[in-house]
């Protein structure tokens, strides 16, 4: 009951935030210089064609009116047409979002699990060479942008040791399974196409790791430091004094409270993955939303830009809510009411 109330309240707040976001994006989009119609049609396009397109996009009307058109479209799920792909933005989103989603989910899993495991090992072997190595490696992970990883992986697995495919979601000799969810791996399982599944799986590994490494290092560091923090808490002492074996203290009584900051950071990092994915998508020719987002940004494709950002904003907001829920589950002291 309390959870539901909390959810409703948070969702309402999120709508306000998304509305604010839409206003901002809209304004930002319109003040960015450059005539989108002209850009899309080329230098030689006759003025009438350009004018027609401008009219179609309501570019000649006052900002408020433009916003009105745009917003009422959004309410009806119509994000307008993309100048980049020439088709309704919503079609683009439904096509590209699953690709990114699949990548990000996979990457998020790696990030969470990998970070956690590294953090735990690092705590376990605190102040030994294992710990130091993990710490330094995770520093490197945090400070190296994901596109550098992407390039390095591509070189390693393209030149030196070509065990993974390096391009796209699926090898060209295979065709996509019937579309149910847009998630290739899931669709291929539904269709029972093992080869497709396996092929898709091997395609996703490299980009996912490249994308995950930064966050993974971050998680590892956070997990380590919160575990070390909690290690000196009185309740750990009392668990010891009450004769609970070290192993259990470590993996149960220490781990759970220490997960709280990790989860919080994970939530944010996960949302950020969507934004960070673009360079990785570019390098791996991944037909995803982030790459689409950057392309449309560079082409000043207003409708598409707004839609992408609203979508990413919604994901961010959603992740925040999910994070809060998980944290409140981990930490009973946290009251959801606020």
């Amino acid at each position, binding site marked *: 009951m309390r959870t539901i109330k909390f959810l409703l309240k948070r969702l309402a707040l999120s709508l306000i935030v998304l509305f604010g976001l839409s206003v901002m994006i809209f304004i930002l989009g319109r003040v960015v*210089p450059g005539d989108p119609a002209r850009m899309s049609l080329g230098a030689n396009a006759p003025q009438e064609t350009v004018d027609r397109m401008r009219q179609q996009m309501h570019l000649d009307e006052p900002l408020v009116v433009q916003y009105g058109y745009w917003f009422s479209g959004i309410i009806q799920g119509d994000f307008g047409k993309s100048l980049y792909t020439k088709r309704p933005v919503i079609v683009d989103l439904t096509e590209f979002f699953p690709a990114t989603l699949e990548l990000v989910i996979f990457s998020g899993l790696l990030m969470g699990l990998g970070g956690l495991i590294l953090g735990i090992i690092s705590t376990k072997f605190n102040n030994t060479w294992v710990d130091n190595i993990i710490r330094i490696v995770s520093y490197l992970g945090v400070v190296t942008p994901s596109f550098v990883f992407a390039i390095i992986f591509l070189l390693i697995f393209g030149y030196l040791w070509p065990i993974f495919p390096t391009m796209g979601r699926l090898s060209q000799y295979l065709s996509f399974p019937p579309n149910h969810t847009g998630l290739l791996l899931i669709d291929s399982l539904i269709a029972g196409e093992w080869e497709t599944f396996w092929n898709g799986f091997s395609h996703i590994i490299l980009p996912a790791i490249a994308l995950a490494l930064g966050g993974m290092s971050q998680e590892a560091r956070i997990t380590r430091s919160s575990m070390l923090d909690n290690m000196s808490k009185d309740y750990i002492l009392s668990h010891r004094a009450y004769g609970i074996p070290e192993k259990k203290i470590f993996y149960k009584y220490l781990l759970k409270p220490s997960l709280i900051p990790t989860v919080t950071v994970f939530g944010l990092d996960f949302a950020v993955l969507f934004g*960070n994915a673009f360079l990785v998508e570019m390098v791996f020719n991944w037909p995803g939303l982030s790459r689409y987002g950057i392309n449309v940004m*560079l082409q000043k494709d207003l409708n598409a830009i707004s839609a992408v950002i609203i979508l990413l904003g919604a994901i961010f907001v959603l992740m925040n809510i999910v994070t809060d829920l998980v944290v409140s589950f981990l930490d009973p002291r946290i009251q959801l009411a606020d």
Partner: protein
Amino acid sequence: MKSNKFTFWKENVGRSWYKFSRNKLSVIGLTLFILLILAAILAPLITPYPKHAGNFVDLITGSQAPDARHLMGTDIYGRDMFSRIIFALRPALLMGIMVLAIVVPIGTILGLIAGYYKGKFGDHIIMRLTDVFLGLPPLILALAVSSILKPTLTNSMIAVSVAFWPWYSRLVYNMVISIKNEHYVISSELLGESRVHILFREILPNCLSPIFTKMTLDFGWVIIMTASLSFVGLGEQPPDPSLGTMVAEGARLLPDKWWVAIYPAFTIVLLVLSLNLIGDGVRDMFTATEE
């Protein structure tokens, strides 16, 4: 009185240093950072070809592998990589400092106000605005801003700042919410202190520790973020050397002309790494326990 004050500071600095230096990595980080700063300041003196940091092109000697004359090789324009990297430390450091100088005060003040007036109108406005900005992926936000403004160092600072401030207001907000209920804040209220005094003299000093820690970590992030901006063509103008641009351009030359990307990338990593290590130390410095 003077000597009192002096011993008091000496003691404080000493204790902070003890906590900071307990972790050897932090000391290494600090040393590294100081070295990099020195290198940046002394760039014209320690680089073999200071001219190459400016308006210089010699396409004929471009893309030479590292050798005795060019320790880190030359780039495709025939400029000495080593000299350019050292000079590029200047805008990188400047960028970090300037962005933080913009972002921290703004974020902090907004966070202070929103936190102190939690539940009031101002709080809602500020925090929802913060959420809006947080909701945008920072890189995308920075991209959007940079595409409005000309790609210059100053403007990429502004762009990165726009994406960064909300993190500080959030951080400070959460701290203020708990600090404002401390009895020392309440005492000041009961005494009749002004809001300004309470916010800036009573509450703010107690928020500094996480702010400082976050600042050291973000310093590195700012540099990475500018590098990412350069990767899509937004950043400093040539011929000014910029680490991010060097990596972005060099990445296209991998692996054959590895030195063009690897050395600047390594420098970024070194710089950011040193700051992260310092950040850890700063956090230790502010923690109460002596363990």
